[in-house]
Each structure stands twice: as structure tokens, then as C-alpha cells.
């Protein structure tokens, strides 16, 4: 068990150090988030819609598309110099590889989601007030569910000849529950409603994330098998 955790930690550490040195994915996701916020801002007719009414949906869309950008490249990191094979021929259980990769992606996406929230709050003039903690929790759980599915399917799409183009086709239908629960609860929290009101949604988001993680850990071995 101790080795298992240490192996997970080693892979997370490796992924984050690589990300810190290249800043490839975080820069792409961050830039995408800010630019999307700017475009969204101009895509709304403020005379007919109040920005805060649509902010929740746009935040989640930014997160989903931006996340896809970063998560899709998870395994390209490994494919330069065939390092994935090195990983697979070391005595690490496949589920540990999956969990580590997912958690490293989660760290990145969570940072991006907080950034997205900040940027939208700034551009759309949202008054988050006392609900900031709740919103961040919701975004965190959503990110976790997203990367849990995203990492698994990134491994699949990387293994196909279609590559990243396949990723959205595979994950978008599966992400519907997450988007529904996430958007409704974020929207209500932005509107200043108490956290109790969205507790059920948050639970469902959590359940979705946990189920996705469990399924991913179970099935990942069949994806990377050669």
C-alpha cells in the first residue's frame, strides 16, 4: 500500500514538474479561458440578458472546452521518447497510473477553474459574496468528474488514428449530468441563494466524480494494454 501511494505521488510529482517547466498545458488552458470570457462577453446582448444570469453556463462551457484542451494532451507528454512504455513496464499497477494522471490533471484544471471564476467575476461584474467557497467546491467537484472521464478517454483517443478530434465526441455525451448539476448549482450560488438549496446537486456532482474515478481506475488497464 505504501509503495502504491508513493508510486502515485511519484507520477503526480513528475507530471507537475514537467508542467511547471514547460507550462504547455496550463498556459493554453489559461489563455483559452480568458479569451473565451472576452468572446462570451461580446456574444451577449446586455440589453436583453443580464450577464449574471448566463454566467454559470458560460463558466462551465469554458471549463469543459478549456479542460479538453489540456486533458487531451495528457498522454502526448508520455509519447515523446515512448515514456509511456517505460511507465507500463515498471511495476506500477495500471490503476495507479490512471489515478496519478487524473489527479495531476485535476490539479491543473482546478487552478484553471478558479482562474475562470475570477475572470468571469471580473468581466461580468458578478458579486459572489459569501458563496465563493461553495462555488469553488462545485467547480472542484465538477473538475474532478471531468478529468476522471477526460483522462480515460484521452488515453483512448491518443491510441486511435483520429487523435484528439475524437475526444469531444466521446466525452460530451457522458458529461451531460455533470454540466446539468454543475450549471444549476453554480447559477443558484451566483444568484446568492443559500448553499442548502444546492446541496443535492453538489452531492450528485460528488457521486458522479467518484463513480467516474472508480470506473476509470477499473477500465484503464484495458485501454493501455498492448
Amino acid at each position, binding site marked *: 500500500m505504501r509503495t502504491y501511494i508513493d508510486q502515485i505521488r511519484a507520477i503526480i510529482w513528475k507530471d507537475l514538474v514537467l508542467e511547471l517547466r514547460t507550462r504547455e498545458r496550463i498556459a493554453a488552458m489559461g489563455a483559452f479561458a480568458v479569451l473565451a470570457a472576452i468572446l462570451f462577453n461580446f456574444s451577449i446582448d446586455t440589453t436583453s440578458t443580464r450577464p449574471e444570469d448566463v454566467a454559470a453556463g458560460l463558466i462551465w462551457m469554458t471549463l469543459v472546452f478549456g479542460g479538453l484542451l489540456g486533458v487531451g494532451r495528457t498522454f502526448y507528454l508520455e509519447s515523446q521518447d515512448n515514456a509511456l512504455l517505460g511507465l507500463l513496464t515498471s511495476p506500477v499497477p495500471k490503476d495507479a497510473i490512471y489515478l496519478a494522471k487524473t489527479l495531476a490533471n485535476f490539479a491543473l484544471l482546478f487552478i484553471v477553474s478558479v482562474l475562470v471564476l475570477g475572470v468571469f467575476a471580473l468581466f461580468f461584474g458578478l458579486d459572489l459574496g459569501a458563496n465563493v467557497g461553495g462555488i469553488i467546491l462545485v467547480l472542484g467537484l465538477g473538475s474532478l468528474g471531468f478529468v476522471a*472521464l477526460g483522462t*480515460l478517454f484521452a488515453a*483512448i483517443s491518443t*491510441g*486511435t*488514428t*483520429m487523435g484528439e478530434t*475524437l475526444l469531444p*465526441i*466521446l466525452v*460530451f*455525451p*457522458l458529461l*451531460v*449530468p455533470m454540466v*446539468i*448539476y454543475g450549471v*444549476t448549482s453554480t447559477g443558484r450560488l451566483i444568484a446568492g441563494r443559500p448553499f442548502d438549496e444546492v446541496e443535492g446537486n453538489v452531492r*450528485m456532482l460528488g*457521486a*458522479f466524480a467518484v*463513480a467516474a474515478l472508480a*470506473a476509470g481506475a477499473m*477500465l484503464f488497464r*484495458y*485501454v493501455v*494494454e*498492448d
Partner: protein
Amino acid sequence: MATAGMRRGGTALTLVGLAGLVFVYWMSFFWVSTEINQGVVQRIFYVHVPAAWTSFMAFGFSALASAMYLWLRDDRLDRAALCAAEGGLVFGTIVLTTGPLWGKIAWGTYWTWEPRLTLTLLLWFIFVGYFMVRNSTEDPEKGKRFAAVVAIIGALDIPFIHMSVIWFRSLHPEPVVAKPDGPSLPADMLTTLLTSLAVFTVIFLGLFLYRYALEGLRAEADLRSRSTAT
């Protein structure tokens, strides 16, 4: 040869099913009475509901066979999953086209994000992904595993999708057959519906076997081309 038997059986079942379909058409046009509130458009129900049932069954079976395939690694299971998935897509397409035709008259709109319709649409897309993944790997074995994973994850996601889309107000008619206090349909409508359910199931099984025979033949062809290549 097993494949040839499968093929004959499939053809026979399909012909029985198609004859049954003619009968169902006759029943729903000439025999069953017109529903009082919705009028004649309610007759779509006799093909829509059985198609939905068949496609769900097919997708469920595909996911199950996929899981068994990953476990046992028997190619026959993968072939079964593939054939069921194809059938699921065909019947799913029936659901997704007949539903709006009915909805336009009954609800006044072709499409609504009604839970069961949404679920069918998403399942349909998940299984489109199943075929895209399958056909875009260089190593066919890899494609089989990837597709199996897609089918399983899709099946696991169904409860979540179902619960989440229910958050939208449901416009879909309440279940009329599978209810605790017995079916609420008039007897002749119920008979028509149940006959149609049986007929659709038989058609699916027949075409499934027929399709399965095709995959079996393909596997034989692969085997043969291999022995001549080396």
C-alpha cells in the same frame, strides 16, 4: 457450420418478424380503436415504444457483452457486442425520428429536452462514438477493447444521465404499461402494443443473428487470409 445455421436462423426469424410487423401494421390501422385525446397520431406509439424498448435492450446487451469480452477475451462476445450496438443504433434512429413526428402533433414541437428522448439521443451518440473508436485504430484488438470501454462507461453513465435530465420538467407521457397497479391502457391498445413489442424483439433477434453470422464469416475470412499469407 455454425455460421450458416446462424444465418438461416436469423433469416427465418427476420421473416417471421416482418410478417408480424405486417400484422402489427394491420392491427394498429384497422383493428385498434383511436385514442380519444390524442387522436390518430397516437398510433405512432405502437412503433415508437417497441423501438425504444428494443434499442435500450440492444445497447444494454452490447454493454454487457463488452464487459464480458474484457473479462473473458472471447472474440464472439466482442462480435455480439458489435452487432447489438449496430441494432441499437438502427432502432434508436427509429425512436429519434418517430418521437418528434408524434411530438409535433401532441406537444406542438418537434423536439423537447424531455428525459427519455434526451437519454435516447445521448445513448445514440455514445454508440456512434463506439463505432468511431472501433474503426480508427491500427490494431483491431485495440479497437475492440476501446469500444468495449466506451460501451461500458456509456452504460454506467445512464443512471446519472437519467437522473440529471429528469431535472427538466418531463413532458413525456407517464408509463402506461409497467405500473404497479396494472396497465391503464384499454385492452385493445394494450394487445396491440404488446404484440408490437414481441414483433420488434423478434425482428431484432433475427437481424442480430443475421448480422452475427456476417461477423462470423468475416472472422473466418480473416483466418483464411492469414493462413495463406504465411
